[in-house]
Structures are given as C-alpha cells and as structure tokens.
C-alpha cells in the first residue's frame, strides 16, 4: 500500500520566539509574478487618476478685511499665526487653526505698504502711505491699555516696502532709497542708492544675511551688501520687476516676479543670464515666495491665479484659482511647506494646500508606504502619454484659457517672423537669441 503524505519543515513556518513577527512566506520568483510592467503601468495610471480625483487644494478663506489685502507676513515661531495688511491701513493677525482673526489694528492711514515680523516673533513692523514705520508688539494690549505702536519713525518720503534682518535687530526699508535701520534709532544707519527711482521692494538674504536685493520701477534689480554699505550690481530687465524672493536653501539664488508675465530665477553671481525663465502666467506677476524647502516657489499674478513652479522647471506644476478670487496681490508659503496663503483684491486671504491631493492629518505607515509607492510610480511612468495627459490636465477659467491661446498665437507669430527675417538676411546677421538671454537688457557694474 502506498501512503502519500505531505511533509513540511516546521522551521519554515514556526517563529523562534513569541516576540518575532509572523513569518509571511513570499516567493519572489519572477515567473510567479508575471507582467510586472503592465501591472505597474496600470497602478501608475490609477494613482494618477486618483491624484486628480483627490486634488482639492482649497482649504479656507479668511475674510474680515475691508479692503484689498496688500501684504502678508509669516510668524517666525508659530505656524498658526499670519499677519496681513490691507489697503485701508488695517493690519489683522489671524489664527490659522481656528481660521479666525485674533487682532485688528488700524496701523496706518492709506495703504499698509509693507509688513514684516521680527526674527524672534515678539514684534512686527509695518510701513504705510503715511510715511511712517511702526513697530508693534505681537501680543495684544492688556486690558485697559490702548493699541499703540512700540516705536514710530516718521520719514520724509513714503516707504514702499520693509523687511527685517534674519538674525539681528536691523530692518531695511525702501522708497526712494534703501535704508537700513537699527531698531533703536530713529534715523537710518545707512542709506544706499543707485540712480533715482522708486524702489518697490527690498528683501534680506536669509542665508548670507548681509545681502539685500531690491527692485525699482526703472526695470532694474539691485543687490546690496550691507556690511560694505554699497550696492553690488544691477541688472536691467525688459520690464519692471515687482518683487524678488531669495531661495532659503541656496544662498545665491533668487527669483524675480516680473511685469512681463514671467518669473526669472537668477544666480546672483552671474546676472547676465537667468538660470531659468518661468512662464505660464498670462498677466503681470505680483508676488513670489519660496517654499522653505527651496525646491519650489509660488507666484501670485494679476491674472487672478496663483501658480506653483518647481525651481528647475520653466513650466508650473500647479495652478490654483477660484471663481471669486480677483487679482492676487500677495502670496506666502507657510514655514512647514504644507500650505500656501494668498491675499487678493477682493479682501480675502485664501489658504491652499501646497500639494493639491495630499491627505492631511496623521498617516499610518501603510498609507505612507502606499503614498510613496504611488508617487514613485507616477514619476516612473510620467513620460507615458496617457499618464502625462491626465496628470497635466487642469481646469482653467475661460479668461485665462483664452489668453493662453492668444499668447501662444502671438508667440508663434513672433517666432515665425524672426525665422523669416533670418532666412532673408545675410547669414549670421540675425543671431539666435535664447529665451533666457532675451529678457536681460543690461548688467550694470
């Protein structure tokens, strides 16, 4: 008689101790798991689709201002606190977790032109159309106290922007010239000027903190060295630059938001050609702010949308808009790199997710693994036409859409004309100018 029986080695399925994790037999023999490419492709496709399904970036709208929001500032120590200044001279401090205004100050008469927080987070500075610079305490006044600034500096001219030093008790204002102030004094330590024009914004370099950048209405960007009390270099672009922002991880990189719908990322050591020209907006770019990781930045535009650009790419990866959002004047990326705030003409501050389809809240390890896997799959198959199509698809307001089409046509016409001109002139007389070089008029030493 034949007895057939199965025999197994207990070593293969019994744990050595009770504390060991259960042995899960897996056979990675590739013949048992065929079609890896098609299967992963389908997974990537699904991940891409789901990403679009879950892309709901808009979180909240903070309303309460009675005029357009002109400037925003982050709190350096608290993620939940945001400051905003409006066109009627009102400054509001918001709590993002509650999505409520916690304090309102009538800071200036006329616009609040600029607002910045001190590096320690105990006070903040505002400038306005009334030619004053005011320092305020971050905490509200005690019971019975009046809302009063800590210091007020009365200047001769209007200050159009302000920024605080990242480590020391110094701040810089701009107007007709760039002034550097000690907090304790009523007159500037030094003022730097190069030519005569109104300077619209000034920004301290967050890494090499003695560096400043400013942009003026005569289309130039000027860099200053605070230690040597001298301007360094000036670059003149085609059109006016509205503001600049330094990369918080790369000391010599800054991005300029220009009136000609583009953003220009410069290496400040080589200003004659920008590192990258970022184009997608269809109207003047009004503000720009880097993500604290230094990998991306967000730009606010007059075309009623904000866009997120990777630093190394010339095209945006994301565009945010709502029906009610008007010209976006200011934008900020929060310090934890998860959210974006934008203040616009129609008196609202909007809070967006920086990553549109990201799940908020605590993730389990399995969720994290799945997210990472999906991310990698999307990256791996991003060149495949179907996946690319779905990942790139965005809904745009009709105005923006039609403007994009229009501008495409215009650009094509210009290109064609240039090609024709080149064809009909002496070889070499019409040189090919790359997109990067096209927009820089001159670099002044």
């Amino acid at each position, binding site marked *: 008689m034949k007895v*057939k029986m199965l025999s197994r080695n207990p070593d293969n399925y019994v744990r050595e101790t009770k504390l060991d994790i259960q042995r899960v037999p*897996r056979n*990675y*023999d*590739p*013949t048992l*798991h*065929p*079609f*890896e*490419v*098609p*299967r*992963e*492709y*389908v997974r990537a496709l699904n991940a891409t689709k789901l990403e679009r399904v879950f892309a709901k970036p808009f979180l909240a709208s903070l309303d309460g201002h009675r005029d357009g929001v002109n400037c925003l500032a982050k709190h350096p120590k608290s*993620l939940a606190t945001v400051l905003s200044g409006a066109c009627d001279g009102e400054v509001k401090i918001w709590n993002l977790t509650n999505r409520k205004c916690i304090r309102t100050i009538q800071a200036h008469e006329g616009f609040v032109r600029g607002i910045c927080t001190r590096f320690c987070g105990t006070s903040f500075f505002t400038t306005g159309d009334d030619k004053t610079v005011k320092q305020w305490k971050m905490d509200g006044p005690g019971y019975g106290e009046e809302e009063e600034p800590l210091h007020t500096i009365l200047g001769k001219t209007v200050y159009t922007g302000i920024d605080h030093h990242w480590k*020391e008790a110094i701040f810089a204002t701009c107007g007709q010239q760039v002034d*550097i102030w*000690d907090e304790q004094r009523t007159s500037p*330590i*030094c003022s730097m000027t190069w030519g005569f024009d109104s300077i619209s914004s000034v920004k301290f370099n*967050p*890494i*090499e*903190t*003695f*560096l400043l950048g400013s942009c003026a209405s005569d289309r130039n960007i000027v*860099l200053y*060295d*605070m*230690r*040597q*009390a001298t*301007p*360094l*270099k000036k670059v003149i672009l085609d059109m006016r630059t509205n503001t600049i922002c330094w990369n*918080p991880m*790369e*000391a*010599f*990189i800054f991005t300029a938001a220009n009136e000609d719908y583009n953003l220009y990322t410069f290496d*400040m*050591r080589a200003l004659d050609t920008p590192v990258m020209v970022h184009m997608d907006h269809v109207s003047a770019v009004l503000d720009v702010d880097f993500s*604290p*990781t230094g*990998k991306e930045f967000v730009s606010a535009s007059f075309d009623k949308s904000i866009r997120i650009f990777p630093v190394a790419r010339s095209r945006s990866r994301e565009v945010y808009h709502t029906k009610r959002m008007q010209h976006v004047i200011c934008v900020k990326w929060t*310090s*934890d*790199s*998860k959210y974006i705030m934008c203040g616009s003409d129609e008196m609202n501050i909007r809070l967006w997710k920086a990553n549109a389809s990201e799940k908020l809240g605590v993730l389990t390890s399995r969720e994290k693994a799945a997210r*990472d*896997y999906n*991310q*990698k*799959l999307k990256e*791996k198959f991003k060149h*495949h*036409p179907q996946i690319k199509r779905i990942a790139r698809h965005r809904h745009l307001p009709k105005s923006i859409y039609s403007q994009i089409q229009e501008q495409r046509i215009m650009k094509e016409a210009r290109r064609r004309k240039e090609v024709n001109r080149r064809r009909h002139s002496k070889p070499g007389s019409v040189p090919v100018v790359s997109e990067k070089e096209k927009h820089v008029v001159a670099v002044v*030493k």
Partner: protein
Amino acid sequence: MCKNEAEKMNATSAESLLALRQQELVDLPKDYLLSTSDDEGDSDGERKHQKLLEAISSLDGKNRRKLAERSEPSLKVSEFNISSEGTREKLVLSDLLQPTKTSSSLATVKKQLSRVKSKKTVELPLNKEEVARIHREVAFSKTSQVLSKWDPIVLKNRKAEQLVFPLEKEQAAFAPIEHVLSGWKARTPLEQEIFDVLHKNKQPVTDPLLTPVEKASLKAMSLEEAKMRRAELQRARALQSYYEAKARREKKIKSKKYHKVVKKGKAKKAVKDFETLQKVDPSAALEELEKIEKARMMERMSLKHQNSGKWAKSKAIMAKYDLEARQAIQEQLAKNKELTQKLQAASESEEEEGDVEENGLLVPDVVHKVHMNANELNPWMQRSCTSDAKEAEIQKDPEQLPEPVAHQDSESEGEESPVEEEETLLKEFEERRSLRKRPELNQDAEPAGHQEAQDASSQEVLSELRALSWKLNQENHQSRKQKGNSTRAVLPVQREEPAQEEEEPLLLQRPERVQTLEELEELGKEGCLQNTELPRPVLQGQETERNPDDQPGAPKKRKRKEQMIDLQKLLTTKSPSVKSLAAPTTMEMEDEEERDQKQMIKEAFAGDDVIRDFLKEKREAVEASKPKDVDLTLPGWGEWGGVGLQPSAKKRRRFLIKAPEGPPRKDKNLPNVIINEKRNIHAAAHQVHVLPYPFTHHHQFERTIQTPIGSTWNTQRAFQKLTTPKVVTKPGHIIKPIKAEDVGYRSSSRSDLSMVQRNPKQLSVRHKKQLKRNPVD
C-alpha cells in the same frame, strides 16, 4: 627756493668777492643744518682770515679786470642780491652737490633729493561715479567669493536622494531636575506630604540620586566588583544549565544516525588517544591494542555488516529512490569489506573479484548506475534523464514521430528544466527574469546556436515544413471546432489578432484548453521527448519511412499522417523555388562579361550570404510571432514533488493551455518581406513615442521602466529603498533657512552690523586708500 640757492652757489664758485657776500647771505638755516659741528667762534675767525686773503689777492690787476667783467650781470641783480647769471644753462641736481661732496653728512640730503626727483606729478582724482563703480566691483567680487563656498552644499542638496526637513536636528531640551524642583512649590497637602517624606530621608535632588543609606550600601562593595562577581556567577549557572540540558537532550535522542555519528566520533577520539598513548607509554598501548582487536573480532563475528540484515534489506529497496539510503548501503559494504579483508590478506586479488560480484548481486542496479555516472554533478538528475530517455524510446517505437513544432517546444522546455534544478534560488530568479525580459532574443538565439552546424538547405526545408504543418493543423483544428461546437463561431474573429507580447498589456487573448484526444497524445510525446536529443536530419529522413508501418491507431491519426506526407511532397516541390530565389538573376543574364562580373562579385562577397541571412531572420521572426502554449502545471499538487520529479504526463496534459493559432502572417506569400505584426494600435496609445529628455538611448529608458519597484517583486527592504521620497517634511515643524552652522561652516560674518555702524563716509575713504594701493584687486 632750491633754484635760487643753486644760483648763489654758482656765483660763489666763480667769484671770490661775491663769495664773501654770498657766504653771509647763505649763513642761513642751511648752515645751521649742515655744519652743526663747527662752533661759532671758529667759523668767525676763519671768515676773517678768508677776507684777508681775498683782499690781498684783489691787489692783483688781473683780478680787478676780471671783477669788472663779472660785475656786468650784477646790474640785473634783483633786490635779493642774486645774480641771474648762468640762467641759460640748465642746472643739474648733481651740480648742486659737487661742493658738498666731501661732507658725509649730506648723504641724507642726497637721498632725499633723488627721491624727489623720481616722484611724478600727482594725477587728478577720479570722479565720484568712477570711484563708486570700482567700489561696487570690488564688493561684488568679494561677495561672490563668500557665496561660492555654498556651491558644494547646494550641489549636494540638489543631487541628494533624499532630503529631510527641517535640516537641523532638534535636541530635546532636558531641564536639569534641580531647576524643575527649585521652581516648584508644594501647594496641595499631598504634595506637602511627599516633600516632607523626601526631606526626611534626605533624598538628594542632584545627580547621584542616592540616599545616604544607599550610598553606604554601595560602599560595602564597589560596583564593578559586584558586577564582575555577578557576571561570573551567571556564567557558571548558565554553563551548568547548558550542560544539563545537553545531557538530557542527548539522552533522549533516538536517532540511530546520531548515535552512529557519536560513536564514530568516539572511535576517532580513541584512535587519537591511542596514538598519543603509543608515544607516551608503549606497554599500555599494547594492551589497548589488544582490546581493540578483540572488539573488532566481536564486531566481525556479529555479522552485522552483511547485507542480510533487516535494515540492509530495506535500505537496498529504498536505494532506488533515496540517495541517503544508497550511501548508507555503500558505507556498510565498505565496512564489511574492511572487516573481512584482514583475515584474507593473503589472497587479495581473487577475493576482490568475488567481492565485486557479490556487490553486483546484492546491490540493485541503480547503485551501479550511480557509479557509472559518478562524474556527474547530480547523479540523481542523471538517473531521471536516462530513465526518461528509456521511456521515451519505449514509447517512441510504436508511435509515429512528433511534428517538428512539438520538437521545438520540447527544446524550449528542456532548456529551462535543468536550470531549474541546478542553480541556487536567487540566481535563478535573476536569470529567469532576464530570460523573460527578452524572450524573443533568447529563443532566437538558442535555435540558431543549435542549427548553425546543419546544412542550410535542410534548414529551409525544415522551416517550410514547420510553417505548413502549422497551417494545416490550424485548418484541421478549425474545421473540427466548427463541427463540434457551433457556438464558437466567434473564435476566428478572435484569432485574427496575433498573440500578445508582454509589453502590450491591454489586449490579452484567451488561450483555449487542450481538449481533443489527439492533442493530448501529442503532448504526451512532447513530455517524453523532452530530454532526448535526436539529430534532426535523421528525424526528417525517417519520417516518411516510419509513417506507414505498424499504425493501428485511430483513423484521425492516419488522416493526419497523410497530410504529413502531402506536406513532404509539397516541400520537395517548393524548395527549389526558394533556391532560385537566392540567385534569380543568374539565369537571365547571358553575357559572359556580365557573368564574369557576377562571378567576381560572388567571389568578393563569398562570406556574407545576405539572402540566407534574410531568410534566417524571417524564419526567426515567424517563430517569434507564433503563440506559445501555457503550462499551468503546478508540480507537487496531488502527487509527490521535489527536485528532479516531474509532474505526470496526465497532469501536464490537463493543465496545459494550448495557444490558439494566430491568423496567417501577412508576409506569408511575400518571400522578400518581413512584416512586423507586433505593433498594436491599441497599445500604441499607451506607449512612449519620443525618447524622454535625460535618456540618451532607448535601452536606458526601457530598463528603467522594466525594473519593477512594487513590493510584489521586491523584498520589503528593497521596496522601501526604491520608494523613498525625495523630500520629506514633518508636519507642524518650521523649516528654517539653511544655516552655515548646520552644514559645518563657520558663519561668514560675526556681525553684519559691525561694518555699517561705522561712519559709511569713513569707510569709503578707507576703501579709496585700499583701492589706490592695489587698483586691481
């Protein structure tokens, strides 16, 4: 001033009278300066003496005349009594020094003068803007230098596989307990009580948190000593328990093998001991030897090592199937031999033969076979092969030979099976993955390798045969299907699409199950034939001869055989046409010259036969495009599994899914064309058309796509490594700008203010100086 002096000096040298006056005139600061050594009185006396001398000399007439002459220019004497004589001559500095040459104290003056001479005139200062520009340039170059220290960090961060933000590691701030306690006061009665207790015991607050009592107890034995002692004790206890456990375990073991091993070990040890003993104490060794001899005799007498025992018999039976059993038997035999050998040492040669014979009788043939194939790596494998071959031979005789197609399949299977059994698991995985990655390549390459040696014409014939038979089969199959099942009318439509490649995931044709008896038989043959390597020409030659004889089989089979014969006929008629294809133009050309040229070309390109290559290529393409059967057999289900065991033919038949025949190839009737039928428009929509940017060759891109990253194909660790995100941020953590300290740099400026707080004007002046010193910095 200088010039005036020079003139004066000149005058003195020319004229003695004037000299007097001059002397007086030049008494001057210079005198003071230069001849400080002479005292006043001396100089006065000398002067007087000089005057006298001059007065005397003036008595001479010549001199007077001279004087008159010289006095002429004195008309032009200025109010300062300086004559302007000699104005026309250019004065050289060295002239000035001539009279003073002797005095060494004037060296410094000379030096000063020479320095004055070498100096050029000062240029006009630069205008303000220019200066500012230079400032800016210098400042810019300095700043650029400062910034360029960030280059490596920026580069590193840009290339980093993963960046975790925030960059700086937060140190958890530990407040020392004293601080906590000092700032804390007991408020509730409970807290008060606790505090009281603590104070009563003099519980210290600071670091060695020990009460005096504890300290005292600690002092009794130092900590290290105590630790050492405890460790020692622990070790002793552990050893003891270990030995106990070991002894208990060994006592319990029933395994004979184990005991055998132990015994062997003991014996070995005994031998060793004996050897040592021999050296040390020969008499004791002799005794020992005797003991051993006795033991051996006992052993021999017991007949334990003959093949007659129950165990030996059972092993002899098992030896057929079990390697270990076989080995055991051999061991036993060896032992037996060893034991018996010593007594019959005299007639060794005769006995050996007998032994061999005995062995032959006692041990089953299998063992012999193993001996025969001892050089093989895996004798068991060999056995299975040979037995299979035998079976195959047996089966082959009554039946007809299988079609070449079947043969082809068997080949491809055959190449896999040894791989399966030989290699280690991991290696095998990799290999097979790579195999599967380029299935066409592999399959193309292998037959090519086999066939290279064979005659080209026979190759063509063979390929034709294959194609035709395949086609016929298909027709046959279809007709049968239509007869049997009317509902399958959809099938041909389905078949029109060619079988899919791996890369085209969307369209997967459903293969059919093998159903008919005929196919089953075929399969059986395939299975049997797997390992038989028959030369192909023989196969072809025999086919026609074998087919007619001893075939009592089903009518269906005969029918097919007839087809086969027809096929062969077709072949013979067709093959010349193919050949004519190879040289179609030769017949047309009549001219000898042309023929010569042709000949020359032929000679020149004798090596590369383009047409044959093309035919070969086409053949390969045809073969590659043929649908493959799917074998779903799972070894070990419902039967014994293991290395070298193959699932039964019945099972294989049951689980083999035969691929449906595709539609005829489009280039079937076009001998000079290969039409690629792989392209699929449905799949093309999902495929990348243009090579994406960073890749330079499509192989690179394909390789990145083909490496799976999912956990289905990778181990957990590899999966985690493959899916690490590029940027990781922690929710709720503020990411601060990168700092020089974070990346190991000293901060570039201790204070940015330090410079500014000075007067900027001053700063600029200082800068100017600096600039002048080295204008190009």
